[in-house]
């Protein structure tokens, strides 16, 4: 009761000075639609909180310096080894600082959860068409956070200056170097000279602890402000229209649910951080020019690029007599195209579906089989690239020659995603004809009907037909600009 009294006093005190009563009341009464997939973005948000909290702890012990020193800490096998201050301090904070390893591992796991949650959130937005007008801005902001998150993650696992991350930095340097015309200058400016140089660790550090997370934090603010301003989308259903929001109130039910999710995310990140070892830098050893770890895999959020580097054939070409080396296409062009298409998707989707109005009611995935097919293609294509980044591990485990895997995977990554996309398209079409059905209810007869017989009403006016069943899904708000 004392808390209640105190909170009330403080809020009323504030209201007497900045007049917050009505705006706070509105915020507390704000309605948030209920669906479990609407919580995926929150998982990303709360793992970012976990990242910042554990990261601040780490900054108090980590020394981002390439200066050579001798490790003298508690980890016996490394005692007396000459290494950079960055590496020595990373081992020290893992072995000598109490709870240091817990914080370091939780930090790393939180990064993996953060980026996984972003991908899951992005998939939900994609499959339900939540990126459509008026939410293109938040789509673009979200993608930018995804990119910044990948960059922060890469900078983060590179700063301990261990042998594994040094190998990753080499590949990053070579990839940057491969860019036509500006590549060599870009790489030399970033590294302050040739690889490895002495500038890269402090530079990655300041990117990792200040510039990139600062940008992410600012974009999170914008993302949430726009979300609150526009109000959340909801799924079609009785009483749900383009002009209302149906769900729980921010205070207290939604707030409590969100707090529960936050604590659950922390439980997972600290649980993983305590119980599941990740990136044991003392096992990799310090970076040294002549060494490389094998097998060497990056974190999953960059492994798809690594997989592409491995599968791309030994093919280099020349423009005006100048060399364009092999890493350029898989390491630069492919990721750039990926993000370009993602950034432009709201506008591409508009062309495909001719849905130009404002959308407050979501599509179900099945409402747009083309989108389902595109997502399935992407999930399998990038998933297979991710698998290809571990081809050496797979080869060792199954005792098969790695080049057989590479040759097979080169074809598989091109063919299988197309096949999966086609299957997903057919399944979505079959499901669309029966809004009540789930994937498990599907019978072969219905699927075969989609493949063989193309009923005329589904052929041309498919979107109108789908909309007519549920008027709520197709209505448009306002007149448009």
């Amino acid at each position, binding site marked *: 009761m004392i808390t209640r009294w105190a909170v009330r006093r403080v809020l009323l005190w504030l209201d007497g000075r900045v007049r917050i009563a009505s705006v706070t009341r509105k915020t507390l009464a704000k*309605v948030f639609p209920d669906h479990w997939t609407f919580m995926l973005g929150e998982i990303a948000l709360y793992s970012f909180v976990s990242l910042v909290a554990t990261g601040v702890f780490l900054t108090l012990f980590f020394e981002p310096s390439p200066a050579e020193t001798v490790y003298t800490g508690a980890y016996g096998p490394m005692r007396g080894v000459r290494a950079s201050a960055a590496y020595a301090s990373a081992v020290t904070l893992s072995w000598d600082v*109490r*709870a240091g390893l817990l914080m370091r*591992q939780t930090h790393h796991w939180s990064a993996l959860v953060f980026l996984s949650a972003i991908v899951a959130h992005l998939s939900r937005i994609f499959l339900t068409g939540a990126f459509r007008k008026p939410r293109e801005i938040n789509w673009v902001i979200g993608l930018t956070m995804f990119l910044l998150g990948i960059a922060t993650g890469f900078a983060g696992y590179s700063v301990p200056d261990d042998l594994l991350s040094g*190998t990753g930095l*080499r*590949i990053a340097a*070579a990839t940057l*170097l*491969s860019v036509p015309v500006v*590549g*060599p*200058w870009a790489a030399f400016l970033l590294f*302050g000279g*040739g690889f*490895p140089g002495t500038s890269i660790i402090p530079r990655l550090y300041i990117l990792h602890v200040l510039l990139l997370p600062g940008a992410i934090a600012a974009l999170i603010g914008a993302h949430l402000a726009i979300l609150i301003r*526009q109000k959340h989308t909801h799924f079609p259903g009785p*009483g749900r229209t*383009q*002009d*209302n*929001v149906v*769900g*729980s*109130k921010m205070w*207290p039910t*939604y707030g*409590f*649910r969100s*707090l*529960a999710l936050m*604590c*659950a995310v922390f*439980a997972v990140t600290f649980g993983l951080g*305590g*119980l599941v070892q990740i990136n044991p830098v003392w096992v990799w050893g310090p970076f040294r*020019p*002549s*060494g*490389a770890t*094998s097998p*060497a895999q990056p974190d999953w959020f960059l492994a798809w690029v690594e997989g592409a580097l491995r599968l*791309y*054939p*030994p093919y*280099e070409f020349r423009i005006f*007599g*100048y*060399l*364009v*080396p*092999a*890493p350029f296409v898989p*390491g630069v062009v492919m990721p750039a195209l990926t993000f370009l298409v993602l950034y432009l998707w709201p506008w591409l989707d508009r062309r495909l579906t001719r849905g130009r109005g*404002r959308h407050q009611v979501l599509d179900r995935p099945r409402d747009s089989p083309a989108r389902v097919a595109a997502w399935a293609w992407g999930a399998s294509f990038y998933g297979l690239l991710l698998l290809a980044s571990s*081809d*050496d591990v797979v080869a060792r485990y199954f005792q098969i020659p790695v080049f057989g895997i*590479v040759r097979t995977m080169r074809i598989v990554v091109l063919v299988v995603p197309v096949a999966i996309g086609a299957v997903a398209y057919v399944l979505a079409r079959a499901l669309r004809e029966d809004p009540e059905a789930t994937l498990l209810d599907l019978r072969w007869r219905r699927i075969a009907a989609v493949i063989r017989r193309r009923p005329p009403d589904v052929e041309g006016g498919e979107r109108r037909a789908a909309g007519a069943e549920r008027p709520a899904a197709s209505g448009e708000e*306002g007149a448009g*600009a």
Partner: protein
Amino acid sequence: MNGRGRRTAERLVAAAFALTVLAAVSFAAVYVLGNQTQLLGLALCLAFAGLAAGFAVWAARLLPQGPYVEEREAMISPPEARRAFTAELDADQEPVVRAALPRRMLMLALGTLGVALVFPIRSLLFHGPTPWRALRRTAWRDGVRLVNADGAPLRPSDIALGGIVTAFPEGRLKDDHAMTVLLRVNPARLALPRGRKAWTVDGVVAYSKICTHAGCPVALYVQTAEQLVCPCHQSVFDVLKGASPVAGPAARSLPQLPIGVNAEGVLVARGDFPTPVGPGYWRSA
């Protein structure tokens, strides 16, 4: 909710928060007793799991469930508000700047200032040579001695048949760019490109250790096949045929270092690598 269900829910919430109390105390106790990462993590995991369960049950069983309905205002202003807004921007049809000259000069000023402010980026490369010069050459020169990773000069006898030794230019043990591998093969089996016979010493050949694909050190030597393998992306180079790529994503041979023996019997370079070492970049040669 009836009174009984409510009481059960309240007890569940209390039990969940009690778990947090226990776990938090254990965390503090484990911390005081020593640095046991697994127990610390488990304790924090349970502490947050207790909070999560408590809040979740509280939200699901003890709080109003709705559904509530809120009106959604159109995310576009009414037409007259939009017209009034653009009119205000146009300052009532009175352009902010009447003459073109100050406006154009402002654009030019901002443009030049913007370009000028890009210049300090060049400071990021504040010492050392420019990229193309640094990438083209290494520290190897005629007569420079080959030393191992500890700085000891290397003699042909230090490289056993089937062995692999990493060499650096003397005095430059951290020179990644000049890193070289020495291998000894049966000289009769060597099938090097024309004119390179004299670049070897009794079957000892020297190649750049930096993979021409993505710059990893080519650290694995498969002795039986006489192939060098890059551990990063599994590029394979044929040692007998001038380290030409035979598999994997690398498209160019590892450059070969011409080597010889000086008067003391120590291995020396006979010049620099004939072509740039390491991953490819925008270059005409």
